[in-house]
């Protein structure tokens, strides 16, 4: 009912207006048109009055004419047939003696987007482009752009573009500016057309017009100038000189466009030129001034300053203070200022910056506080001298216990750890206290990374990680991935205590997850751990590359491009102009074919390769659960159904291998003898499980007395000023020996040798002095045997069999570390009576025992014992 009422009312209103529009009285007519316009402005549909309003067009009253034109522009599109009625009046008005009316007519006609009307527009437009009055010419110039928008072909066919180009040399600066604006707009939809073909003569024309035209015209001209490439540095300098006064313009858009031209042309100036320095100095004040403008202007200015600071930090390096945040700045300004503060941070101003950042971290606005905390971390990474101060500031902030502050702080501390390893780990304890309050994925992931990375220093690392594992499936992928990696790291560092944990996480990641990334990573770790734990260690615990000082720097080629687009939307979004909506369609289009082609070709091998992989899943995720065994079988040997039993390899031990054999080889890293050749000197008929165990653990002891691993290089000559040491460990007639080959690769004679061991897991120590025959001349090699005993000081090493050695000679002291086979520590008389063994076995608490089923094992105890 309500709608109906409104409808009726509108109906009545329109009826009334119709009557008034057809009134004889001029004044009444005008008032009626005004009412119509008013309704139109607020979005009411008054198109029904079209014929009546058009009837009012033929009048001497300029205001009435303008109002009717306003109406026409709005509704002509929906009433094209009616609009034709107006054409005659337009054509006539284009001949009017009053230039205002001529200009108005051509301007309005261009706004009526009806094909039939545009046909009639061409002749009047041609005349107006050559009109004697510059006001008409400048209006006509814009009209060409309008027409081009409606019918580009028509504009080209009629030769309007050439006329427009001629207008660049017009005597009136306003006409020049409008011609440039129109051409720029047309050029935008034709990226490759040579519309604005600039040469030194036209540049000179533009520079002259620049001084005399309106502020808007200056923007068009400056933007146009920015596309020009000067022939040499002298031309570049002269353009710069003529553009610099624009930096003092009150219109900020003019200022920024001038900055763009200067930033671009500066590239061509030699740096030792005096003028170059002058120009740099001149650029700072206008940029600072932009920051005292309204917040919206500030925002755009700040986004651009961000680019400028990355390109030429020297311009604003002394202006840090203007970027300090006022508490009532809008949030979008605050965030941008903060970004630039970090970019400008240097050793000189870091104290001030840090004090500010600390202040910001107690503000109310959550987003801002977060970014401020993050900024402190970025300062630490950027300015090394401040790192310690930053860390202590962050710790202070963690003490506030404000949840989001703590979380941000942990995220940045992770980066600080990476940048300065082994420096600030003392704070880990404080971080661990806040474990429970972390509820954001990024913070959780960061904390997990820290625990994994420093697992050896955190006593309860396994407990901490286990606590995260409980809700594994509810975590975000980021956290899951990090947790997986951290537990694997932990396992590699503390293999003995964390077997269960690692198995748990591996099966969670591979069996129970739908996320391909997680699954793949899980499998990779699993395979690594099972095939070659040493390699796993090398991969997982590899030295990480340093993180860069500046985060989120814009990539240089993009930065160059964006500098050429200072002041535009591209500069606000820090994206290349080709990524923008309309106008650049042509550019994008050209790139697309190449992309599509490569996409297709990439697809076919993809499907091939997935074909191979796709066979795997059914076997990989077996229903019975002994995933490990199956996985290993699948990976390393042909399917078990084929032919004869595969050769006896440690891999055949399936699940046991990962936690037993793998672990073992982890400990006895250089122990090269494969279990397959193990003589079964322990052929005591114990139960199957036990004998397997013997194979793994005890079996290695006996024959090892004779086995000596080949010598490896411990200390390369490069690192020891010419002294190269390679060596190995051996057990000969009950005495542990270190057998070394020393080579003098230096140019001088060496002497005064001595050796020392760091404290180690089994208390290994030299039993006598290192005896090297002197003089040890260049290019000489000596074999040295050093007897060892196990009465030295004990300290647990990581890995267990690691030995840190210091060798001294007359040149310097050198350090290296090497790993010895555990077997060389085993005594020859280790044989036990069966009863004694079983008793000893039983003495080990039950919870230290784990059991595994080994399937598809084609060995039996007899085979094992006879081979």
């Amino acid at each position, binding site marked *: 009912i309500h709608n109906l009422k409104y409808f009726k009312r509108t109906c009545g209103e329109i009826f009334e207006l119709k009557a008034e529009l057809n009134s004889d009285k001029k004044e009444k007519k005008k008032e009626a048109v005004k009412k119509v*316009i008013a309704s139109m402005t*607020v979005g009411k549909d008054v198109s029904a009055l079209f014929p009546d309003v058009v009837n009012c067009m033929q009048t001497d009253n300029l205001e009435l004419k303008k109002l009717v034109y306003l109406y026409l522009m709005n509704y002509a599109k929906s009433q094209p047939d009616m609009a034709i009625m107006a054409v005659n009046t337009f054509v006539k008005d284009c001949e009017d003696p009053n230039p205002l009316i001529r200009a108005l007519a051509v301007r309005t006609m261009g706004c009526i987007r009806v094909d039939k009307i545009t046909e009639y527009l061409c002749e009047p437009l041609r005349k107006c482009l050559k009109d004697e009055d510059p*006001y008409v010419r400048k209006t006509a110039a814009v009209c060409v*752009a309008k027409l081009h928008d409606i019918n580009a072909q028509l504009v080209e066919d009629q030769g309007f573009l050439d006329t427009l180009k001629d207008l660049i040399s017009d005597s009136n600066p306003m006409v020049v500016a409008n011609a440039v604006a129109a051409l720029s707009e047309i050029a935008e939809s034709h990226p490759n057309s040579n519309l604005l073909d600039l040469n030194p003569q036209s540049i000179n024309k533009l520079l002259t017009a620049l001084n005399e035209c309106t502020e808007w015209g200056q923007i068009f001209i400056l933007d146009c100038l920015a596309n020009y490439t000067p022939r040499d540095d002298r031309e570049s300098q002269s353009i710069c000189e003529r553009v610099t006064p624009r930096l003092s313009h009150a219109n900020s858009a003019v200022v920024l466009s001038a900055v763009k031209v200067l930033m671009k042309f500066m590239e061509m100036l030699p740096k030792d030129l005096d003028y170059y320095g002058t120009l740099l100095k001149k650029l700072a*004040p206008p940029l600072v001034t932009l920051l005292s403008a309204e917040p919206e202007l500030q925002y755009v200015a700040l986004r651009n300053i961000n680019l400028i600071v990355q390109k030429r930090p020297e311009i604003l390096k002394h202006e840090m203070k203007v970027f300090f945040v006022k508490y009532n700045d*809008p949030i979008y300004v605050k965030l941008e200022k903060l970004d630039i503060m970090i970019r400008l941070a240097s050793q000189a101003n870091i104290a*001030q910056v840090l004090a500010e950042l600390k202040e910001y971290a107690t503000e109310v606005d959550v987003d801002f506080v977060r970014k401020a905390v993050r900024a402190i971390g970025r300062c630490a990474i950027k300015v090394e001298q401040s790192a310690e101060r930053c860390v202590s500031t962050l710790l202070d902030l963690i003490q506030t216990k404000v949840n989001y502050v703590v979380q941000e702080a942990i995220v940045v501390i992770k980066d600080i750890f990476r940048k300065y390893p082994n420096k600030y780990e003392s704070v880990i304890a404080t971080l661990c206290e806040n474990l429970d309050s972390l509820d954001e994925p990024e913070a959780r992931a960061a904390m997990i990374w820290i625990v994994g990375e420093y697992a050896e220093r955190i006593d309860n690392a396994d407990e901490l990680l286990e606590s995260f594992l409980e809700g594994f499936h509810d975590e975000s992928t980021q956290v899951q991935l990090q947790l997986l990696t951290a537990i694997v790291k932990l396992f590699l560092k503390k293999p003995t205590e964390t077997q269960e944990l690692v198995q748990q996480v591996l099966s969670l990641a591979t069996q129970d997850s739908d996320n391909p990334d997680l699954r793949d990573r899980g499998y990779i770790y699993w395979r690594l751990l099972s095939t070659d734990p040493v390699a796993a260690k090398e991969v997982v615990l590899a030295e990480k590359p340093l993180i860069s000082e500046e985060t989120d720097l814009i990539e240089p080629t993009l930065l160059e491009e964006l500098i050429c687009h200072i002041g*535009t939307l591209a500069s606000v979004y820090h994206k290349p102009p080709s990524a*923008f*909506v309309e106008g650049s369609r042509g550019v994008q289009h050209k790139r697309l074919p190449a992309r599509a082609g490569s996409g297709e070709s990439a697809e076919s091998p993809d499907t091939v390769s997935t074909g191979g992989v796709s066979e795997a899943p059914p076997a990989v995720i077996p229903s019975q659960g002994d995933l490990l065994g199956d996985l290993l079988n699948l990976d390393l040997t042909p399917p078990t159904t084929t032919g004869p039993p595969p050769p006896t390899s440690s891999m055949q031990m399936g699940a046991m291998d990962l936690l037993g054999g793998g672990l073992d080889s982890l400990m006895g890293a250089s122990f090269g003898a494969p279990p397959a050749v193990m003589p079964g000197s322990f052929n005591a008929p114990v139960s199957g499980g036990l004998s397997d165990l013997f194979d793994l653990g005890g079996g290695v002891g006996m024959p090892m007395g004779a086995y000596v691993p080949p010598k490896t290089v411990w200390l390369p000559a490069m690192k020891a000023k010419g002294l190269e040491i390679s060596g190995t460990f051996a057990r000969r007639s009950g005495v542990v020996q270190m057998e070394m080959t020393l080579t003098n690769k230096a140019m001088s004679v060496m002497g005064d040798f001595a050796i020392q061991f760091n404290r180690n897991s089994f208390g290994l120590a030299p039993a006598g002095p290192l005896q090297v025959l002197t003089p040890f001349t260049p290019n000489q090699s000596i074999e040295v045997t050093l007897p060892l005993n196990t009465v030295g000081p004990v300290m647990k090493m990581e890995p267990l069999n690691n030995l840190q050695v210091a060798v001294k000679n007359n040149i310097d002291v050198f350090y290296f570390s090497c790993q010895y086979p555990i077997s060389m520590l085993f005594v020859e008389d280790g044989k036990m009576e069966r009863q004694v063994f079983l008793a000893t076995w039983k003495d080990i608490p039950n919870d230290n025992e784990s059991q595994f089923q080994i399937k598809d094992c084609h060995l039996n105890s007899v085979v094992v014992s006879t081979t």
Partner: protein
Amino acid sequence: MIHSLFLVNASGDIFLEKHWKSVVSRSVCDYFFEAQERATEPENVPPVIPTPHHYLISVLRHRIYFVAVIQSEVPPLFVIEFLHRVVDTFQDYFGVCTEAAIKDNVVVVYELLEEMLDNGFPLATESNILKELIKPPTILRTMVNTITGSTNVGEQLPTGQLSVVPWRRTGVKYTNNEAYFDVVEEIDAIIDKSGSTITAEIQGVIDACVKLTGMPDLTLSFMNPRLLDDVSFHPCVRFKRWEAERILSFIPPDGNFRLLSYHVSSQNLVAIPVYVKHNITFREGSSQGRFDLTLGPKQTMGKAVESVLVSSQLPRGVLNTNLNPSQGTYTFDPVTKLLTWDVGKINPQKLPSLKGSMSLQAGASKPDENPTINIQFKIQQMAISGLKVNRLDMYGEKYKPFKGIKYMTKAGKFQVRT
């Protein structure tokens, strides 16, 4: 270029739209409304909002959002500057720039917008040109128009449009010829807890009101032009002359205009005219907090500090305050937690203070943030930078004009951290 303009009021209604090219549907503003909803404060709406086919660039003035729609790569500052010009023009024409004023004058608004842009290109944005094209509505003119049937729209081509001095119309006549200049400086400063200055800078402007007959050519010189090393000029100022002689030489626009704006940065010494002694404390476990604030003058060259207004956003945990001002009045809004204290004039003999207690939510922990104190003030007859006009001369016309210079200093964003 600029495609369309939408005016949106505080409650989120579009009350005016204008299209300079094809019509863009109102629905494009939905993206703006989304951003508006996300923003906690009205002024936090980002100025540039991308949508799939357009970009929305907006400014908020007088509680109205001016939302411009652009479709191609257009310099955002260009659009923002233009929107500012629209706001200024409305204010100039209607006295105020409010929704009601715009709605009352909707036809004039439409005519103005049509004159200001053509196909998205700025056409006439200088107020004196616009005024020649479209006469501002006044009660008198409305009456005259109704009686005589004449119109609001000028029949003649505006004289300024094409001359080399587009900002001035020809044939200006006054019986009293006068030229007044206001030197107004605003101090932006951040003062830290201990009272030392973190940043301080001066934003200065010289606003002029020139009503002179004919085509006068003015020169304005300063006692200490060296202060002005970062300046933005009105287009009428001859830049070369300034570069060479540090003299402002110009043919002024008719009426009110901003001749110059300048910036004195923190490198130069900026005097801080007031100091604040404060003690705002919360104790852990107590539901009371202490509030103690005293203001005093400092470096004012003997001039009085007037119209002092102190405001501070107290922490959310503060329920109410019980304060006692030694002069002026104070209010505390328990909803927004905004404390304002209208101090008035500072008497150096008897310093104004505001003391008392704040009550906190029972059992709540001590607030983390420290309130920042915002101070507004005015000092008449002084430019805090020390800038002084030396003399003003007029050439080109024979009469003798009245001349006047006024100085004033006020607080811009003057903040004291506690």
